[in-house]
């Protein structure tokens, strides 16, 4: 049956792009390597073959320029999809993103639209190190006028991409490299999904976990373990970190009265800070425990896997916070973590799955 079709998130993104380009000939794809044999981790396969080099545009190494070309082209009626293989490359185009993409609609008093989608891929693992594995989403989330989407699941990624490519809002589309590998059910006729905020991906009554991107998988893992200990976790996928819509989170936490925020970025000044502060404002009297934030420690990503092991939070960190929120004694927490280690012995691995053999 169609409904049981499972594909990876990278395939899902590729599919969405292909379908959107078929329907709308103002969409073009541009970026360094979009036509090369590796096809951006497989996400641009078939594109150049189907649409030719005028709609799948190979580029010099010039990220600031690229962003500007896309904005100018969007202002004159096209819908560019710009791809950077790593988030970091977009650091060269922050001026264009922040001053032009984000503000053009506002400054023109609504007269101009900038329907650009920028795919940024977050690296992790295999020693990529300090300049190739940063989670810099708060840099975009801080900027009014941008839409920042962080899909975690294949089917959502496909729907999100279709929507982003059909609307008029400049969208930063942040993909975690490890999500690329994860398969999920994707209807072959997935249609656009609303890019209007978080969604509850698991219901529960005891604790709400708000997670983004790859950390959803760690949260799900932790919640599976917690369930065995009779703790029922409600998991909210933040999905769209800008503009931020908090209603669903407030709703969830008013039920569970306990909240853990976990995302792929730094804890300090990270996404969790905004959610935590907002939920406190909204539910000051109702919370049973302080909100827990889980994020990266305040230092660059080291290359060596020996140093990176402690760097990335995992389901284990989440279980520890669950223990605290539920007043578990240390023995019970240890039991949970033991169970986790049986279920997923490679929790500190530097590769997304055992088949991965490098080099990037």
């Amino acid at each position, binding site marked *: 049956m169609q409904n049981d079709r499972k594909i990876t998130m990278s395939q899902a993104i590729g599919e969405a792009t292909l379908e959107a380009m078929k329907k709308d000939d103002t969409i073009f794809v541009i970026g360094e390597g979009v036509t090369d044999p590796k096809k951006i981790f497989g996400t641009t396969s078939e594109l150049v073959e189907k649409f030719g080099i005028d*709609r799948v545009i190979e580029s010099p190494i010039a990220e600031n320029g690229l962003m500007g070309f896309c904005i100018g082209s969007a*202002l004159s009626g096209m819908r560019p999809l710009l791809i950077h293989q790593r988030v970091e490359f977009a650091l060269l185009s922050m001026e264009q993103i922040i001053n*032009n993409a984000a503000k053009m609609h506002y400054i*023109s008093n609504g007269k101009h639209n900038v329907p650009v989608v920028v795919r940024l891929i977050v690296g992790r693992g295999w020693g990529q190190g300090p300049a190739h594995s940063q989670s810099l989403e708060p840099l975009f989330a801080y900027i009014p006028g941008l839409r920042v989407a962080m899909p975690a699941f294949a089917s959502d990624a496909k729907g999100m991409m279709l929507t982003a490519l059909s609307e008029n809002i400049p969208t930063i589309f942040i993909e975690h490299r490890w999500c690329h590998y994860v398969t999920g059910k994707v209807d072959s006729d997935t249609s656009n999904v609303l890019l209007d905020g978080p969604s509850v991906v698991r219901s529960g009554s005891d604790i709400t976990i708000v997670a983004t991107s790859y950390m959803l998988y760690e949260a799900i893992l932790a919640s599976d373990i917690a369930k065995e200990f009779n703790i029922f976790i409600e998991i909210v996928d933040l999905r769209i970190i800008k503009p931020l819509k908090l209603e669903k989170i407030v709703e969830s936490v008013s039920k569970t009265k306990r909240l853990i925020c976990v995302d792929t970025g730094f804890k300090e000044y990270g996404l969790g800070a905004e959610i935590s502060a907002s939920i406190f404002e909204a539910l000051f009297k109702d919370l049973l425990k302080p909100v827990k934030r889980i994020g990266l420690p305040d230092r660059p990503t080291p290359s060596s896997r020996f140093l990176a092991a402690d760097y990335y939070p995992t389901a284990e960190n989440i279980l520890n916070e669950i223990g605290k929120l539920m007043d578990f004694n240390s023995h019970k927490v240890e039991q949970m973590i033991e169970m986790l280690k049986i279920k997923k012995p490679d929790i500190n691995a530097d590769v997304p799955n055992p088949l991965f053999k490098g080099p990037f």
Partner: protein
Amino acid sequence: MDSNKDEIIDFEKMIRIRLIEEAIAEKYSDQEMRCPVHLSIGQEAAAVGVMSFLNKEDKIYSTHRCHAHYLAKGGNLNAMISEIHGKVSGCCGGRGGSMHLFDDDAGIIASLPIVGSVIPLAVGSALTFKLKKMHNISVVFFGDGAIEEGVYHESANFAKIHNLPVLFVCENNLYSVYTPLKFRQPNNDLTRLATSYGIENIRCDGNNIKKVKSASEIATKHIKDKKEPFFLQLDTFRHREHCGPNFDDDLGYREEDEIKIGFINDPILIEKDRLIKKGILDKNKILKIENNIKIEIEKAFTFAKQDDFPSRASAEEHLYAK
């Protein structure tokens, strides 16, 4: 004679820009125009000359110093003066001020105050023209400072390798704010920064409307015929301070000689003399032209003054497109 008529029209355009900006300068001290203004006074020939070979479907982009380009391309005067007054009928509804002028109806897509930032946008419009197989051209005006930004180079290279119909117009007024070219460039021939990308180019006296026009004619024809970019360096001179209504040569950042020559080369004086000498215009006719323009200008200022403030609540609108 048709060519006479063209010459008169161009002269009128230049003098209109001059008078509008002089009016802004004069009224600036009333403190009703509360935003930075970068006047183009002295640089009118560049704007008018290039624009005379563009049609409505050709698109232009400009910088912080955008008044002349906006006006020469046919931007709405009321919308401009209202914008500078921060009023609701301003082209940006007051959101942008003097450095963000645009007018879609006239093909003026955007002006941007971050130096160099606008250059790749014009290349992007040219990419659209190519992809949509349209025969228009995209033009970007920028200064001798902007060419130093890396993004100019990324833009020029991309425009060349993709054969895009874009005209780069570098108005060299010798300064970036108060910093002369000699502190910023090995020499003041900036066409080398087009040649290096294989982009055809012309450098010419940007204060001489006839020279600007003949260069622009070649440029626009080349872009359309050869389907590739072109680069113009127009050497010119800014009369007033970098930002604001006043003269600033008391600051001593420009050489005496440079200043003297700069003012002698006023594009409007030169053209006025020429047209009078050729008998195409006389002092009376010019006075009449000026008076008509002055009436238009007063109307625009009256319009702007009477125009409504944008409401505070409206500031919340248009953050995201529908």
